[in-house]
């Protein structure tokens, strides 16, 4: 293990399209670096001790048609059914106008999390409407911009309740009518926090004085609609927090949680147009009363103003979040489910409140018909009040009915040996009911057959819980009802944003690489999209194959023995990995081990996840070169030797360097009885070159949305599978539906429907393509570093003067000398048509740049030229030719309005945009000027104003 494996001189097939630079461009860049081969670059950048020259064993690359054919055959092994299982997942119809213009549109799915608000106004606007939608559905005051799934949202709500409840009680009550997967995840999350869970019937078992909060499902997992007002009142009187897990389609007709007195509502927006996808991804929601807004987890979009005082959106109250608060954050949440939240919002706009009411009423009426007919046949339908889900007592006929149903292509819910659950949805119709009746008629004479049923109520909702609160009165939910209007609205929003379809997004640590069309295609196949997560395993052979394959590929790449695909974000992967470590120590009678060492340079999610896993965070300092200080590491190990549980490392480091001492660090932690968690955020620099499991790590998460081509979706979905060595394998997350426990996500395989993207990438790259991609990612970063070095200092470099797959440029000296801030540079890059690199992470007042292997030489040069031009503007400030306040740097980004207004600035109009406008047809124009971050946090507005304010304004 010392020399780099040979790297192909050129790529062929798909790899050649995925990797930006051509062989001659690679040769040129190597020349600039004074190198003659990619092998030499790799040997200089990576420590010899970790270089791994063995093949990955992934085989030869498939061409695009070969991949689509192979994956198509796998998909065909899944059996599409009429799924009436329910339990939080329902079939839905994604309007084609949304599918084509949003889900399948790279302008939406290749965008990044909207940290740079000026170039993100389109998706920020739609997320603002998502929050308005949730506020209206729940009747609460403020919603965030989505969470990962309903079960993790319930866990987040439990943690929020613990923070804000005034009672000192340490127990949390869980309605036994919550979905089983919700209860499972609550158990996982409560245990390391030392919280006691009490599971029971709220009307019978809830002692409000004994708990800090309670969660009630509405309607219950078995369909019953109960009036929670009594429980909620009792909880509030006791100083406890009332949480409702509510189905959004039911809330269209039912009195919402806010009106019932609840403090918090959570739920899944899946059935608003997002396919079931064998479990995800879907957007969950959380909404709270205004007084709890600072305790909310996750992203919140707020309205602020720009430099002109015009309204502009941006992320609000970021000080709650892990990237600022670290182990004191409200959550470890980093990714949201933006793309899915946007689909749900567009679905609500497309249907409008009347359309949604139509859908909900139809489902309720069909369910009522089904229940009435079954009752007429002599069956017992358990509950009087329900929305879309009924439970039927089927006695000894249960197994036979399930078997017949499956033969007819219908899945029903297995509740027990004598009870069946049936959940109807938007796609159910009269034919569905006919099929169902026939199933039961075999065992119960259908006395009502052929006869009109007696006149019945429209639905089985309790009169006292009918919704009285208005819904979606904002004009945005009434304006886009024709397809032309919706198509143009989505286009106009997308045009406001910069995504990968227009420019390199050189965000350090985010790996914004190509999301190829061939990789994206299979997720739309119904054999992947329209599968219920709890479908019988005999129906999902295709998914099983896909999952087994991908687990094996990731294990080979990471050097691990077992993989879990369940965590549905990187932060969830961290939590799952740390929980595996925790359980491992406890299994050996070493439960005292609860100290987690984390370098000062770590991603904020690391300390936040460690805190959630019940660990105490101890920070390890870095030295001047950016490496972990071995002296401080040893001191901290010695100080905490008895309680050392783990170290969380990122490799290559967040400073963009392959630390030489990685092997030594792992050895020392192991020697003290600790485990090594290696954060795989920077895996893109080492696929096929080095394997964490071989150089000392015990567990890693892989960010499939970074290294393995799942698009960022404007801020989610992400997937964070974990790989572990054999001794941790027994402690991977299980799932209640598969007979296990310890789940970290609602679905057994997390966001399964987007796994085909990573599968397709790995298979089309093949062993050698992946190695070349890693090498070119490192080459691109080193080329950028070399070209930028004359203009800006590069902060950290490894032993041979090389960086890994990203580099940090240091603006602190420039700031002190000229007053030019890192924001000025980031915003000026917008005028050049670029998304800014990562700002002020991991070091304040720096920019971290990661080009990825997908960008070609021309785009890298365009970026370097832009940075050089910005440097000359900085120099003009430094020379005193222009005040920083008056400079184009401070006025950036420039809007069309700036240019057409009378000009009175200290620089010529032609200097406002690069090239004096010569490239006007290519110019990106931001819709707003620089956004005032502070104003929006001091004047928090997170949803559209209620209608009264519109009418007041009109008066």
């Amino acid at each position, binding site marked *: 293990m010392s020399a780099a494996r040979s790297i192909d001189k050129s790529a062929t097939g798909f790899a050649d399209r995925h990797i930006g630079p051509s062989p001659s461009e690679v040769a040129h860049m190597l020349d600039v670096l004074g190198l003659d081969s990619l092998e030499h670059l790799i040997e200089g950048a990576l420590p010899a001790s970790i270089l791994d020259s063995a093949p990955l064993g992934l085989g030869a690359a498939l061409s695009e048609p070969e991949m689509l054919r192979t994956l198509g055959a796998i998909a065909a092994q899944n059996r599409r059914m009429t799924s009436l299982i329910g339990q939080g997942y329902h079939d839905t119809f994604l309007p084609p106008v949304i599918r084509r213009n949003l889900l399948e549109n790279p302008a939406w799915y290749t965008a990044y999390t909207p940290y740079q608000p000026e170039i993100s106004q389109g998706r920020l606007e739609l997320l603002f409407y998502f929050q308005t939608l949730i506020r209206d559905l729940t009747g609460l005051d403020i919603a965030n911009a989505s969470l990962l799934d309903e079960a993790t949202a319930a866990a987040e709500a439990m943690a929020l309740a613990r923070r804000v409840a005034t009672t000192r009680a340490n127990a949390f009550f869980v309605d036994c009518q919550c979905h089983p997967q919700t209860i499972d995840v609550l158990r996982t999350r409560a245990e390391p926090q030392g919280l006691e869970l009490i599971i029971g019937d709220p009307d019978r078992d809830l002692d409000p004085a004994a708990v800090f909060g309670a969660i009630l499902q509405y309607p219950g997992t078995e369909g019953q609609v109960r009036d929670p007002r009594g429980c909620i009142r009792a909880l509030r009187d006791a100083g406890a927090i009332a949480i409702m897990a509510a189905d959004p389609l039911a809330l269209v007709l039912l009195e919402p949680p806010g009106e019932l007195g609840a403090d918090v509502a959570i739920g899944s927006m899946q059935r608003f147009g997002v396919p079931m996808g064998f479990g995800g991804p879907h957007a969950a929601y959380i909404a709270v009363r205004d007084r709890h807004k*600072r305790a909310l987890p996750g992203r919140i979009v707020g309205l602020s103003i720009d430099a002109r005082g015009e309204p502009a959106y941006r992320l609000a109250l*970021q*000080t*709650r979040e892990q990237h*600022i*608060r670290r182990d*004191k954050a409200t959550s470890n949440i980093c990714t949201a489910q933006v793309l899915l939240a946007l689909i749900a919002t567009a679905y609500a706009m497309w249907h409008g409140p009347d359309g949604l009411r139509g859908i909900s009423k139809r489902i309720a009426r069909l369910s009522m018909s089904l229940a009435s007919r079954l009752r007429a046949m002599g069956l017992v339908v358990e509950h009087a009040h329900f929305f879309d889900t009924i439970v039927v007592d089927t006695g000894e006929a249960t197994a036979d009915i399930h078997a017949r149903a499956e033969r007819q292509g219908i899945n029903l819910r297995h509740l027990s040996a004598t009870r069946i659950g049936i959940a109807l949805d938007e796609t159910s119709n009269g034919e569905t009911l006919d099929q169902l009746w026939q199933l039961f008629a075999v065992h119960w004479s259908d006395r009502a057959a052929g006869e009109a049923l007696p006149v019945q109520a429209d639905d089985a909702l309790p009169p006292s819980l009918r919704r009285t609160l208005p819904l979606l009165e904002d004009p945005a939910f009434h304006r886009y009802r024709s397809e032309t209007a919706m198509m143009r609205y989505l286009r106009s929003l997308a045009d406001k944003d910069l995504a990968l379809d227009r420019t390199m997004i050189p965000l350090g640590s985010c790996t914004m690489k190509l999301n190829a069309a061939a990789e994206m295609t299979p997720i739309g196949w119904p054999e992947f999209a329209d599968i219920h997560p709890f479908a019988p395993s005999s129906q999902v052979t295709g998914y099983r194959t896909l999952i087994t394959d991908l687990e094996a590929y990731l294990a080979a790449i990471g050097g691990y023995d077992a993989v879990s695909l369940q965590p549905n974000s990187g932060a969830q992967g961290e939590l799952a990995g740390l929980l595996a470590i925790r359980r491992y120590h406890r299994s050996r009678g070493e439960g005292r081990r609860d100290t987690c060492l984390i370098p000062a340079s770590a991603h904020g999610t690391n300390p936040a996840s460690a805190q959630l896993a019940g660990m105490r965070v101890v920070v390890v300092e870095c030295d001047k070169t950016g490496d972990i200080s071995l002296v401080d590491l040893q001191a901290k190990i010695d100080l905490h030797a008895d309680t050392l549980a783990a170290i969380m490392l990122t490799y290559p480091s967040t400073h963009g360097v392959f630390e030489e001492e990685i092997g030594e660090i792992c050895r020392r932690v192991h020697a003290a009885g600790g485990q090594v968690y290696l954060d795989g955020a920077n895996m893109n620099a080492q696929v096929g070159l080095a394997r964490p499991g071989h150089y000392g790590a015990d567990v890693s998460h892989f960010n499939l949305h970074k290294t393995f081509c799942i698009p960022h979706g404007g801020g989610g979905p992400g997937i964070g599978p974990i790989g572990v060595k054999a001794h941790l394998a027994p402690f991977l997350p299980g799932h209640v539906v598969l007979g296990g426990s310890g789940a970290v996500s609602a679905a057994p395989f997390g966001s399964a429907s987007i796994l085909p993207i990573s599968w397709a990438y790995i298979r089309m790259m093949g062993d050698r393509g992946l190695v070349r991609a890693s090498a070119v990612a490192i080459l691109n970063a080193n080329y950028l570093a070399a070209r930028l070095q004359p203009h800006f200092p590069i902060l950290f470099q490894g032993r041979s003067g090389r960086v890994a797959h990203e580099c940090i440029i240091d603006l602190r000296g420039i700031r002190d000398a000229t007053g030019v801030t890192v924001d000025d540079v980031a915003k000026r890059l917008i005028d050049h048509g670029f998304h800014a690199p990562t700002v*002020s992470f991991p070091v304040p007042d720096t920019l971290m740049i990661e080009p990825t292997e997908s960008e070609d030489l021309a785009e890298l040069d365009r970026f370097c030229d832009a940075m050089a031009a910005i440097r000359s503007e900085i120099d003009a400030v430094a020379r005193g030719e222009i005040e920083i306040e008056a400079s184009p740097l401070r006025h950036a980004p420039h809007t069309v309005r700036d240019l057409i207004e009378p000009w009175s600035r200290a620089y010529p109009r032609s200097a406002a945009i690069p090239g004096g406008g010569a490239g006007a047809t290519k110019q990106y124009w931001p819709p707003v000027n620089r956004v005032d*971050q*502070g104003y929006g*946090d*001091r004047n928090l507005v997170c949803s559209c104003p209620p209608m009264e304010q519109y009418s007041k304004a009109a008066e």
Partner: protein
Amino acid sequence: MRFTPDHEWVRLEGELAMVGITEHAAAALGDIVYLEIKAPGTHLAKGDILGVIESVKAASEIYAPIAGTVSEANTCAIDDPTLIGQAPEGEGWLARLQPSDSSEIDELMDADGYRALLDSLGAEQ
């Protein structure tokens, strides 16, 4: 006026101790957006959390520089947190405490001591 290593200042005004953050801390925090102070009547030991101050880029806890009981929060600064950035050692004060033992104030750094601390921090950078 006396200072803590956490960049708070404290000053005796009559019987009450007035607490705020230093010019240095305000500059480091940047655009301040939020202030929260423990409810009046809350008793705090020295070093207990007195409140939270947030800017757009950072969140900091404010620690009680001396033991005492919260007597009053600066409601003007809560309503308009920009006051803190504009005049951290004047109108942008944070809270008044009823000291348990007002002589504790004398144990804190004086202006020269605090300046020396800032110099040593600058040198480290």
